[in-house]
Structures are given as C-alpha cells and as structure tokens.
C-alpha cells in the first residue's frame, strides 16, 4: 500500500496591503511542510498555494476552488474579515480552515481550528500592563474593519473597568496612509499612550509619521506617548524603518527573540530557508504550528475527513517555538503563552513580561470579562458645521 497523499490549501495574501506579514505566514507554513517531508511520516503533504491579494471576493472564490478540487484542509487568512468571508464555504463543503493569526474572538466555527491568540491572550494582558505601568488615558487608532472595532471595544471595556479612559477612537481604511489629522488629534489630546489596531502599510506609515511629528515638537514619542499593539511583529519593524523602529510595545504569544532550544531551531531553520525574508513573526509561528498540528491530526485520524481530523486535533500537544501549545477540545482554540515586549533599534523585541505557563483560550471572554457591558458616557458632541 502506497503512502497517503494529501493536498493542503495554503491561502495568504502575499501581495496587497498586509503582504509582509502574510509572506512570513506563508514561509512559516512552508517550513513546516518541509520539516514534515524530511521526517518521513506515513503520508505526504502537498501544499497548494494561492494568493487572494487582499481582495475579499478572491478569498471566497479561491476557497471554493480549493474545496471544489477535493482539498479538505486550508491553512490561511490573516484578517478577520477574510476569515469571516470564507467560513461559509468551509461549512458548506465541510472542510477545515486552519486559521493561524491572533484575532478578536467571539467566534467558534466547527469548521475552523484557531492556532493564533484569543483576546484573553493578547489584548487583556496588554491592558493590564498599560494600566499598571504606563497610564490610564488611551487614544485608539485602527483599520476600519471588525478586528479594530472589536479589539478596541474589548480594550475600552477592560481599561474603563480599571479606571482608565479612551479619549478618542479613529479608524482609517485598510491601506490608507494619510495620518495628519489623526496625529494632530493625538497630539492635541496628549494621551498616556496610543493603542494601535492599524494593520499592514497603514500601521507602518502611522509609526513613521507619528514619530516624525513628535520629533518636530520636541516630544520623545517612545517614552511620552508610546504606541501599544497586539499586531506588531518583527517583519513589520523592518518595514517601519530605522527612524521609528524602537520603543513600541507589543502583546503577542511569540517573539523571535525568545530564548529556547525550540525557538533557536525554528529561527535558524526559518532564516536558512528564507534568506530574503520577511523575517519570522508570531503569525509565521502560528502558521508553522497550524501545519504541524494538522499533520499530527491527519496521522492520528488516518484520513483527511474533516470531522475525524477535528476530533483528532483536540488535545494535541506540540512543543512549539513559543513553548507548549495544545488545542482546547471545547473551543478548538489554542493554549498559548502571552508576552509583552518592547521593540529595539535592532528590529527585535525585548520581552518585558511573560506568563508562567500556557493560558487557556477564552474566545468569548467568558472567564475574563464583566457580566454586563461597561456603560459608556454619552458622547460630548459639538457642532462642527451648521
């Protein structure tokens, strides 16, 4: 009997506004495929790589094409809007989407395995850090889609519960790089910190423009108004450039500067396999984990049937670059290790805090949010045009 052969979809927008992170995710996934092939498992995996180019309609069309070609498992998506766009396809064809990125939670499709961080593993630890060590007045900026809306909502409720206040929220279209008005508003409010949910090219432009605007006014941005994110990763630091790369806070479950034999092996193999970059990131690690878990579940299930693989992945444990990772059998999200870090001039993160052990996923914040939503004050409106 010959070895089983499974074709696995790999769907990342390696061109478009958030292509830098997506290319690192593709690299993380491809590295895992190579490693699996080298270990000589009972089956062979063939990655089928597609690129939706950041176009939502192409995500849906490509998902249908992959599933229609008999592929049952796809590792892919970075943005929540793209994930939500393709979930109905996976539910219709009973496929499994292996989603390898942090997200805002409040979702648990039976056709998705979530290997990135849940909100209790990224935004809530960040609120704790900021409220206890940085300040209580936040200015929120974000890309205008569900990730930023919901992550800001969770952030606002958690910060308000700790006595803090969000002085303003501003949203820009994905890919927008015009920040003059937003930066003027931030400098006018002079918050204790900025909470950033911009993604891709918008984020890089914002970091550069904000640093430059502060410098003109004699403000040391990194210490006076630091920017904190749940998205910022190493390949993005490279995109921001040397003038504005340092002093940014990031909450993540993985940083490439982590010191461990597993991470040394991963980082070394990644750098060797992809010398032209982009460098590895938390989302690259999550993609690597997704493929490794998929392979382990396929091996245990002995078939690529989605239900059998889903059952097999429950409670799978993996010694990943970030530490031990396992899939929670109730939510099909991952136990991960939250960390807070600050970026340095070298384009790497220095870890400031980390959880002692992996933290259970809580995608609906059942264990970590108040029973009632925080009552918001009525907005203080003023007439801007009559």
């Amino acid at each position, binding site marked *: 009997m010959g070895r089983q052969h499974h074709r696995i979809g790999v769907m990342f927008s390696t061109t478009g506004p958030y292509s830098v992170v997506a290319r690192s995710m593709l690299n993380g996934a491809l590295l895992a495929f190579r490693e699996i092939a080298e270990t000589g498992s009972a089956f062979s995996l063939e990655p089928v790589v597609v690129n939706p180019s950041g176009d939502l309609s192409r995500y849906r069309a490509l998902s249908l094409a992959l599933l229609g070609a008999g592929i049952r498992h796809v590792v892919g998506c970075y943005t929540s809007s793209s994930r939500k766009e393709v979930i109905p396809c996976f539910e219709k064809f009973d496929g499994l989407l292996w989603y390898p990125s942090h997200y805002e939670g409040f979702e648990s499709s039976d056709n998705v395995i979530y290997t990135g961080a849940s909100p209790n593993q990224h935004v809530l630890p960040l609120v704790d850090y900021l409220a206890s060590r940085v300040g209580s007045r936040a200015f929120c900026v974000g890309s205008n889609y569900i990730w930023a809306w919901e992550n800001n909502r969770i952030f606002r409720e958690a910060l308000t519960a700790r006595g803090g206040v969000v002085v303003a929220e501003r949203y820009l279209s994905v890919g927008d790089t015009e920040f003059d008005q937003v930066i003027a508003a931030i400098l006018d409010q002079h918050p204790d910190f900025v909470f950033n949910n911009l993604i891709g090219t918008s984020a890089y432009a914002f970091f550069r423009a904000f640093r430059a605007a502060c410098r003109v006014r004699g403000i040391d941005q990194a210490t006076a108004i630091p920017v904190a994110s749940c998205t910022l990763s190493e390949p993005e630091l490279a995109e921001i450039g040397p003038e504005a790369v340092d002093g940014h806070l990031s909450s993540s479950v993985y940083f490439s500067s982590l010191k461990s034999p597993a991470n040394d092996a991963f980082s070394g193999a990644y750098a060797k396999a992809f010398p032209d970059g982009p460098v590895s990131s938390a989302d690259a690690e999550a993609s690597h984990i997704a493929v490794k878990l998929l392979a382990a579940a396929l091996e245990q299930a002995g078939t690529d049937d989605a239900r059998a693989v889903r059952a097999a992945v429950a409670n799978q444990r993996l010694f990943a670059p970030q530490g031990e990772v396992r899939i929670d059998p109730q939510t099909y999200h991952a136990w991960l290790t939250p960390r807070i870090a600050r970026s340095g001039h070298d384009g790497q993160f220095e870890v400031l805090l980390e959880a002692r052990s992996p933290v259970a996923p809580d995608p609906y914040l*059942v264990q970590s949010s108040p029973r009632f939503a925080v009552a918001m004050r009525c907005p203080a409106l003023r007439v801007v045009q009559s």
Partner: protein
Amino acid sequence: MTFRVLQNFKGGRAIIVARRNGWEVTLETTLIKLGVVSEYPEIVGGRVQIDAGALQPERDILFIDGDLEGVVAIGVDTASRLPPVPVIGLVGVEAPSRLKALVNLGATSFLRKPVHGGAVYTSLFMGVNQFLLRSEMYSRLQNLEERRRGRRDVVRAIILLMQSGLDEDAAYSQLRRESMRARQSLELYCEELLSRRARPPHSSCRTTSERLQGGSKRAM
C-alpha cells in the same frame, strides 16, 4: 437611566424544552463555550416538568421547541406579557400558528432548527437582552403610571398651599423643594402631605411610603 447590556452568560442555565433527536448537540456544545450549562426537563403526559417557582431570571434561559405544541405552561404576566425568565423559541415548522405560540410564551428571540453553532450567541444575546430591556421598560411604565395617578394629589396640594396665600408657581416650587428634601417623589410627598392634613390628631392610620413605593397604589 442607561440600559446595561448583558454580554457574558457565564453561570447561566439553559432549560431546553425539546425532544432529543441529535440536532440539540450543536446547541448544547455551543452553549458550553458561552459558559451556559444545559438541562432537558422531562415531558410527561404532554407537559414539560418545570418547577416554575424555582426559575431565576438572572440565571435561567428557556429554549422552547415550537414544534412541541402546548407542552409548556409558564406564567406569562398578563400585564407585561413577560415570562418569568428569558424565552428563546426553537423554530422548526415556520408556521404562523407556532410562531404566535412562541410569542405568546414571551419569546424574545428565535433559533432555527437544525441549530447552527454560529447563530447561538446572537440568539442568546438578543433573547436575554430583549427580555431585560422589556422588563426595564415595563418597570418604568409602572413607575410612570403610578406618578400619573398621583398627579391629582399634586394639584390638590398646590391648591391647599395657595389657600395660605402663595401663588401657583410658588406653591409648586415649595412642594418640589420639600419633596426633594424628603427624598420622595413629588406625587408621594403630596399624598402624604394631604394625608397628614386630613388626619385627625394622634391617628395611627398612616399612609406609608413603603406601600406606595411597592407599587400597590391605585387611583383615588
């Protein structure tokens, strides 16, 4: 007063009135993710066995299968049309008669059968919060009704003070000021004022604020 949205259902108990055929597994497993445990009361002789007195609106949510006609007899308040706990209708046969039966049981949201996991949070969120919103609105309505009934006492109290030489505005201002000082509604303060004036000295028959605030006051 700002309505507070309930968004975390941890500690909740779903009482699912349905015959177990397999479709309810998705509902149950999704509810677990939301921190809600499920119970299936027995249906004996066409009636579901629920202890209505033990239901707690802060904890319990009733999921009622509309295809089981007449198995649930819960006490829906005739005035407010509110059930004792939030009710979510499970809809199989989408017929007006069955939907009407669920509405009459006080259902504030619905879930189609077979249940899709992605619809449960929305349905629970809407069902519970609409129940809370309607409860709060009814409470406000009752309060306004009570005050409306008390307006006659306000008019009488103003006339009483005007008989001592005050004009209408001054009489009203004095009553309002004194009611605020007494931390009572204007209507209640006026009722007690009139009661004190009308009462023979040393009478033990008092109108108490407790009775009024308990909501049992009726039009004179």
